């Protein structure tokens, strides 16, 4: 056993701080003075989350006693089991909020897609790091790795959980980039997302972004075919968005997008969540309205405020100071985890740590971005803070794996 002083206590305490912030926010969102208007199962959320935090704490500690080699050895097996669980969920799962993502096991509702994130990352990382570096000319490995990610991604999409599917998809550029995909090509892979985002707001924003990104890709990579492809892709993305918005999408989908770009559009319909979320955060001011004092929160102006809109609870009741504490805590976590990754000698540990960090980051960015109307509303929980046992456990396991690999890093490098 290693010296416990080598354990990354700072990350562990960060985990605890976030868990406590989450419990406070969930308490406020579900146990407030007028919570009798909420459904009973929602009123139970706080106590359920407490139980999950305690379970997760034991899991986190337990994982520290495992050899990091186990993660490599078990990665494919976990991946296979995960896929089977996903298929079972599709067949026998429970539907909550329109997504058929839950599998009932005993007293608990398990969300296999959450745990699948871990298995997928471990499997893809194992595959990628057991091969040579991917170059711009040899994309066979890359394609196999992409397939490893796309299979669970499509299963999640079939469960009608768009947010989680996005997480899987976002792993592709991150993991390929880390495995040696040239910067220019990596940029090319993420460029359509950036262009599409801007094109939704105004088509010419998208076009400008396409041109700038293409120029950047040319500058980094200096490959004519990549540059041309990049520009064509960018142009197609902008036109695709236009066609989709004007021809393909249903009115309610367009309304949702319109509500994002113009939040005052239909304030009681599609724009409701956006406007209420902004109102909750904005009316918090510098110091917030105080614990259990947030009118938006306590009067339930926001749906799902214990999960997707939990940042609004913090923003409203604890104000700018509370929001800043959350943002800084997360920033510290991300920077610290990436430093951890940089210190690893073993590429598997590097890739896994970076991927996990990316998952946290994307969750954070999309969740807070949605809540503050920076992004269209995409239902993703805020790691460690939002209510959700499976998600909390999954996030804790991911963190525990990072801590484990860091804790055992010398053992790990010897093994290699």
């Amino acid at each position: 056993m290693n010296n416990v002083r080598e354990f990354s206590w700072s990350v562990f305490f960060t985990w605890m701080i976030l868990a406590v912030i989450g419990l406070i926010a969930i308490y406020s969102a579900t146990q407030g003075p007028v919570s009798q208007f909420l459904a009973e199962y929602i009123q139970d959320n706080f106590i359920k989350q407490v139980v999950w935090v305690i379970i997760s704490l034991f899991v986190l500690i337990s994982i520290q006693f495992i050899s990091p080699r186990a993660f490599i050895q078990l990665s494919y097996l976990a991946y296979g089991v995960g896929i089977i669980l996903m298929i079972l969920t599709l067949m026998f799962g429970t539907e909550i909020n329109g997504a058929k993502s839950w599998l009932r096991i005993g007293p608990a509702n398990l969300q296999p897609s959450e745990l699948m994130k871990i298995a997928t990352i471990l499997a893809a990382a194992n595959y990628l790091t057991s091969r040579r570096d991917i170059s711009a000319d040899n994309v066979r490995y890359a394609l196999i790795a992409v397939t490893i990610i796309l299979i669970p991604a499509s299963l999640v999409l079939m469960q009608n959980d768009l947010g989680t599917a996005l997480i899987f998809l976002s792993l592709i550029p991150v993991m390929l980039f880390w495995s040696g995909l040239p910067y220019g090509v990596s940029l090319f892979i993420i460029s359509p997302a950036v262009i599409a985002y801007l094109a939704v707001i105004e088509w010419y924003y998208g076009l400008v972004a396409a041109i700038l990104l293409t120029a950047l890709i040319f500058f980094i990579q200096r490959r004519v075919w990549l540059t041309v492809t990049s520009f064509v892709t960018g142009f197609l993305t902008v036109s695709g968005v236009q066609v989709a918005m004007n021809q393909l999408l249903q009115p309610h989908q367009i309304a949702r997008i319109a509500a994002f770009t113009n939040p005052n559009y239909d304030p009681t319909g599609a724009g409701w969540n956006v406007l209420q979320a902004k109102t909750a955060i904005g009316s918090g001011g510098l110091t917030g309205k105080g614990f259990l004092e947030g009118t938006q929160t306590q009067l339930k102006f926001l749906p799902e405020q214990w999960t997707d809109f939990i940042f609004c609870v913090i923003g409203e009741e604890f104000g700018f100071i509370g929001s800043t504490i959350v943002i800084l805590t997360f920033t510290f976590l991300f920077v610290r985890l990436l430093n951890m990754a940089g210190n690893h000698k073993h590429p598997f540990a590097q890739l896994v740590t970076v991927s996990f960090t990316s998952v946290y980051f994307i969750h954070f960015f999309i969740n807070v971005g949605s809540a503050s109307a920076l992004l269209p509303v995409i239902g993703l929980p805020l790691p460690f803070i939002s209510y959700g046992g499976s998600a909390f456990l999954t996030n804790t396991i991911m963190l525990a794996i990072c801590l484990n690999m860091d804790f055992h890093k010398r053992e790990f490098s010897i093994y290699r």
Partner: protein
Amino acid sequence: MSISQSNRTRTSIRALQVIMIGMMLVVFGRVFYLQIIEYDVYAALGQENSVRQEYVDAARGLIYDRDGRLIVDNEPIYSITITPSLFDKDKLPLLADILNVSDSLLTARVQEAQRYSWYRTSRLITEIDFERFSAIQENLWQLPGIGHQIESKRHYPTDINGSHLFGYLREASEAEYQNSDRLKLGDKVGKSGLEMIYEDTLRGDDGVKYLRVNALGQAISNFEDTTLSQPPVQGTDIFTTIDTELQVLAEELMEGKKGALVAMDPKTGGVLAMVSAPDYDLQKLAGRLDSDYWQAINADTLTPLYNRAISGRQPPGSTFKPIMGLIGLHLGFIDSTTTVYNSGAYMRGRPYRDTAPIGDYNLENAIANSSNTFFFSLMDQIATNGYLNEWSSLVKDLGVGVTNPIDLPYASNGIVPDSTYLNRVFGENQWGVGDVMSMGIGQGLLSLSPLQVAQMTSVIANGGYRVQPHIVKATRMPSGKVIEKDPQLHKVEWITDENLGVVRAGMRKVVSEGPSRYYTNNPEVPTAGKTGTAQNPHGRDHGWFTSFAPYDDPQIVVSVLIENGGYGSISAAPVAAVLIEKYIEGEISRNYVYNYVLNFESRPTDSELIDNE
């Protein structure tokens, strides 16, 4: 691990950290923007969201009769409201089931509410019974966007219909509520009668209370800041001069007739009863609007919404003759002994017909037998001696033909022509002595409302005092303070008791000896009056009767107009006789008159028969 790989790792870690910190800064900036820069905007929005302002309707003032009996009060009605933005359409069948209305009707109502406003609460169904109201209350938790409220509507506890007296309430028009800081959309305001004139008095001040609501619009508690809320101030009560029993009887007597009736206390000018027939059913306009009924009374050619008692303008006919006598005596063209011979017609370029028996008439007998010749002759002298304008102003001294408004809307001033008026109507000096002479017998351009005929008669009855007709004698503030309205009586200086005596004697003879005596000559209640039959170019003559009783100490004046009733002596006079008996004696003993009035059918007058031949 190669050097280049290690470099790439370091660079990539830095790159990722920079990207992440950069994006964290974007999030941070966004939060800073919302919470610090835009704080004022969202703080206000947050307030609006969670605190809902609710109005507490003030109880409308009550209306009492002259004895303090309640004649108009309020009764609660239960309404279901909807806030369309919060309403869940899937709940429509459930709601329809509870309300026991069809899905299609409810859908239409919901759509109507949506068209009005998506966010604001509007009434979905009003006047539901208490049972359904309770059922809704029980199921409110599963009906988001549905609310309930208790409102009130006017209720009329006595048998008085009083449609023209009390008037009806309707929702305020957009112009009305936008020009008033007391009205809000959907508020009902008085649109006619006392409800209209005393709108500002009867309407209290709505209270305001603040409720904390959740996103479903469910009220959670009262808002702590009670300094903002205001309790409602109930409306001021009004005490009228109406005699309930007399009014009920008057309405009964005028049932099925066309015309108007005014009973007045000559000592105060207070209206004891007032009817315009046909009238409409006020109860039907009290709550939820019955649009079929509303359209029917609007389209009715007999114009039941029109108040003939005060808005009508008709030649008063012979009921004007006593006033002519007073003016003649005052101006000195006649005295009580002056006689004029009636040969069947008064000759002035052409014969002016007189149906009174041939013979000599002094003023008293000319009134008693309604001899036209006497008054043609008198008016002829007034006109030819240049006293037309003097005549007009003397008539106006009685309060008729000028603004002397009763406290009801749309009261007519009447017309008492002078030379200026005749010039305007006929053209400069295009009118002749005939146009003036006909006014001497209450015809021609002279026109008054039944109320004004009653006013005129009151002056004769009360010894020469001009009355201010009114219906409300006092108001009672919510604090309990009662404000009496002084009846304004002004002595008409030119009327002397001596002259009055002559005219009154003539009027007494009308009742006891004239053609109406069978109905009007009640030995128990000595009455004086004057019949009138006003020629009507559009159809059968209008019958008039104006009267006061008891003769020695008049306590009531009754003026009746029966449109197209034929002779006043047989159409209008019996109505007045029954009312006078009821008012003075307290009960009707002469049932044959009462039954006659109820079954009255008009007959043509002689002049009509002649014209038709």
